């Protein structure tokens, strides 16, 4: 199976104000490489400040990489070429309530990426929006609603619809499941798994709930202060953690796993 997304040695360093002639850097992310295939999920776990979100920003192109290369289907992605990138790599954020523009209806919200990236006419666009809403479990009537008329779970569905409307190949979930209520979270997990089956999406799941990570992902990367601590198949890593940090992370959630 060929790799869908191939990342080699990307890293990110932020420049600090230099003192005299000395240049100072903060290394937010040390060089990291991984591959993802279609239908697969890669989980990235770590504490705050471990470089999880930096990695996500580098992949979608919100930040420029310091070193390294990102290849999608064998083609390398160029800095600043957003047209190519945003069609194939999409992102869902943690707080869906604040990432939707409150002054636009759902139709206008979903129309925006279509207008900018495709040359469909209006009728085709409306048809596509209707299909996408149906795919994420919403109704066509919801097109004329404003974001505040939805509940939290439905808002998360709208942002998922916005992510998949351009038929991407990679979707990045940046803590997208963390803040949801448990019953809505399991609905969302089911929906994401179904979409993965149907569309062959590859997910990059960023989060810290190891129960969800275990259930959802095939591969895992454990980050600690910008460095890759452990990398491998999820079940292998979680069952036989080698590094001290991974063990600590699993121990801290052991209280939540039920050992009664």
């Amino acid at each position: 199976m060929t790799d869908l997304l191939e990342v080699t040695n990307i890293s990110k360093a932020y420049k600090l104000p230099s003192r005299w002639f000395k240049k100072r850097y903060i290394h937010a992310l040390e060089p990291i490489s991984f591959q993802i295939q279609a239908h697969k999920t890669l989980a990235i776990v770590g504490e705050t400040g471990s470089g999880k979100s930096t990695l996500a920003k580098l992949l979608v192109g919100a930040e420029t990489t310091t070193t390294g290369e990102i290849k999608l289907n064998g083609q390398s992605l160029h800095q600043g070429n957003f047209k190519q990138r945003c069609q194939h790599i999409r992102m869902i954020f943690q707080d869906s309530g604040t990432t939707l523009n409150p002054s636009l209806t759902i139709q206008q919200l979903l129309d925006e990426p279509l207008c900018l990236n495709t040359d469909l006419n209006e009728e085709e666009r409306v048809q596509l929006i209707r299909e996408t809403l149906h795919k994420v479990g919403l109704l066509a009537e919801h097109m004329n609603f404003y974001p505040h008329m939805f509940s939290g779970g439905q808002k998360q569905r709208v942002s998922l619809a916005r992510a998949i409307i351009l038929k991407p190949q990679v979707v990045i979930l940046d803590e997208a499941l963390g803040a949801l209520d448990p019953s809505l979270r399991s609905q969302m997990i089911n929906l994401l798994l179904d979409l993965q089956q149907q569309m062959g999406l590859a997910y990059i799941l960023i989060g810290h709930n190891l129960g969800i990570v275990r259930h959802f992902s095939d591969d895992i990367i454990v980050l600690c202060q910008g460095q890759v601590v452990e990398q491998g198949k999820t079940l292998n890593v979680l069952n036989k953690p080698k590094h001290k940090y991974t063990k600590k992370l699993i121990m801290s959630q052991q209280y939540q796993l039920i050992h009664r």
Partner: protein
Amino acid sequence: MNLLDVRNLSIELLTNNKPILAVDKVSLTIKEGEVRGLVGESGSGKSLLAQAIMGVLDEKWHVDADRFHWRGNDLMRLSAEERKSIISNDVAMIFQEPMACLDPTATIGEQLEEAVDQQQFEGFFWKKRQQRKLEAINLLHKVGIKNHIQCLKSYPHQLTEALCQRVMIAMALAKKPLLLIADEPTAAMESTNQGQIFRLLASLNQLKNMSILLISHDLENVTHWTNTITVMYSGQFVEAGTTDQIFKQPFHPYTRALIDSSPTANIHIPTKSRLMTLPGSIPVLQHLPIGCRLGPRCPRAQRECVNSPKAKNHQGHQVSCHFSLKGSY
């Protein structure tokens, strides 16, 4: 002895048209030295219930209860001032997002000294100032902050979230409360920090015999730390019992669904398989279903569910459902 005994508490939101029943006949008892979990999804009225216990709801809300006893005193009969003096002495509350709750313009030291009880000091004012400072340091030591010099001088934004939550707990401890209400103390916190805060609360419970009402939206997070759990859904009482009862043999379809939907509690199911889940979403306050509010989402709902079920007690395990799962175990 029961510290807090609340029976059939209802909270109404007074609007221009018809009052909305936000919390519908919820019962809650807390014994001395007990850790009780209060679990419910967002909009289930658990924070409202906590605020009603503290008595900090304003005129828009109308609180009514069959029984509202605090250590044998009927709080409903007392005047607002008497009630306030009792509650403020014996009950303390900590909130979620500790960073947002602390005053960003004052140092931790100033805020802590403000919270310290004045009554316990004696002597002239310069002596009192000294004592107050010592007490603040003492409080920080109690919550496990050893580096008090640095901490007292810093502003909230200079500390990590877990440290801020510890400071909040320190403030709550200032009056030596009998009951601590923790309203989602670890929401949006890293799992390692969550463990720290829960361990601190557990040690306070064991060493000082302080009761804790632990409010959370996630059942799986609190099960390790609680003795008893009360589950709420959309403002209605669902189920109450010991943690073991709730977790091993839930009688209510909603609790069953909550446990089944959690991937953490079901390690044995194959990865990437579909999770059990309830259809639909939580109803909004303006459009509440009649009778049992779980009705439209419930897998066991039948015609009788349009009438609110009464809470039934099975050996300390209370459940409020017409078709409970009791027979199926």
